[in-house]
């Protein structure tokens, strides 16, 4: 059986390693072949970009060689897919190769698309690429005071990032001794300060306590860079001296070009993780259109479910369980406190008051991630 995994991010890597362990005997006896097709020989720890933008991590800490993260027996090919021929159970790569499969997993992820909002890319700082995070770091270092506006597009990767960057900016400016010269203004697309109601109920009084102003029902429409104003679909306007954005995200271009899903997000069954209409094609991570957080944690738990199910298909002829939508998200609440939100499709989160211990757990996870990617944690 040929299992083809397209994408070497968190979801694809965890799944590949999970499968390689479960199917070690079948790989050795050549009954199963696992191939990963990816666009880069490097693997990035994307949550580290938040820390990079604030001078708390350096670029070299974000990367490992993809080959070094994978179990022996996985055939890694740095050769991205250009064409999906799902009706023929095969894909074609940039390098000109054709790969047939029995089971295909698409885990190509998502990308920031600030260009969707006129004026945003030219006038805002963002921390969703290495280049962007470094530029934001330099802008923050040069900033001596004024109005900082935080604005976000929908959908975006990591729903906790808007709160995290706001709380961390508060501490950043406080540490520099200029917090009294900075007005932090947070905007949010829905009618409360976070999509999760229990998180919003906790965060709003924290904003009040820290002197962070906020404005809800604010969906970016355009940025007037000349006058330093960001305008919303709802008719609002926010004047800024420094604009920080959580940009709207789209799926990868290859998904759009192959017409697999609107905006690059593939219609996916939320419990089976199959692509709609294609029972031997699975989709995990940011690539799905499942109404769930686009976050590494989401991809991680989906990869674990799928690893168990694909191994069961090989050994038993059918999957063994449905995915429950589990997500666990850390929430940094400044430079030295954090909490978390854990939920699934049926149980809402119940965030606890932030603690230093949870912050240090997150700091530890920033290092432990590499064992997580290897499928050990």
């Amino acid at each position, binding site marked *: 059986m040929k299992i083809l995994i397209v994408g070497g991010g968190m979801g694809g890597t965890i799944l590949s390693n999970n499968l390689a362990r479960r199917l070690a005997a079948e790989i050795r006896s050549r009954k199963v072949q696992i191939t990963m097709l990816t666009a880069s020989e490097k693997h990035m720890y994307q949550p580290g970009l938040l820390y990079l933008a604030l001078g708390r991590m350096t670029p070299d800490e974000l990367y490992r060689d993809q080959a070094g993260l994978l179990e022996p027996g996985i055939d890694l090919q740095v050769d991205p897919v250009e064409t999906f021929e799902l009706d023929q159970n095969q894909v074609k790569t940039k390098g000109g190769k054709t790969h047939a499969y029995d089971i295909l997993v698409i885990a190509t992820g998502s990308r920031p698309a600030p260009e*969707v909002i006129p004026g945003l890319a030219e006038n805002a700082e963002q921390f969703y690429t290495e280049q962007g995070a470094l530029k934001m770091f330099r802008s923050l270092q040069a900033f001596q005071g004024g109005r900082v506006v935080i604005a976000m597009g929908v959908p975006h990767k990591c729903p906790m990032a808007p709160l995290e960057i706001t709380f961390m900016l508060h501490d950043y400016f406080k540490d520099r001794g200029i917090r009294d010269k900075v007005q932090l203004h947070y905007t949010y697309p829905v009618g409360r300060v976070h*999509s999760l109601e229990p998180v919003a109920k906790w965060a709003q009084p924290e904003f009040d306590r820290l002197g962070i102003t906020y404005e809800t029902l604010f969906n970016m429409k355009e940025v007037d860079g000349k006058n330093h104003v960001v305008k919303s679909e*709802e008719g609002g306007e926010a004047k800024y001296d420094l604009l920080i954005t959580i940009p709207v995200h789209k799926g990868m271009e290859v998904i759009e070009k192959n017409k697999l899903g609107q905006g690059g997000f593939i219609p996916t069954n939320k419990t089976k993780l199959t692509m709609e209409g294609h029972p031997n094609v699975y989709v995990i991570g940011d690539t799905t259109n499942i109404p769930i957080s686009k976050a590494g944690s989401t991809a991680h738990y989906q990869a674990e479910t799928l690893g168990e199910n694909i191994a069961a298909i090989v050994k038993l002829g059918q999957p063994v369980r449905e995915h429950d*939508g589990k997500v666990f998200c850390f929430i940094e609440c400044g430079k030295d406190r954090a909490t978390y939100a854990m939920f699934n499709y*049926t149980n809402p*989160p119940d965030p606890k008051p932030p603690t230093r211990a949870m912050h240090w757990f997150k700091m530890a996870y920033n290092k432990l991630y590499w064992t997580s990617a290897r499928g050990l944690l």
Partner: protein
Amino acid sequence: MPERTIIDARGSFCPGPLMELIARLKYGKVGEEFEVLSSDKGSANDIPEWLHKVGHEFLGTREEAGVWHIALRKTK
């Protein structure tokens, strides 16, 4: 009645039904009708409030077996 595009946001605590609607409306056509399915009763207030503020047309809400169906038309 024109065919409606269903946005099934049941079980979506995060990013939530309104955020799903905002994301999906970007790809809709003017005049297209949508129906959001939500297991959160708060959506019955949140979504019409946002539609009113942005200027899209709210077509109505009904509840069936713990699922709220919120209908709307994209107007711009």
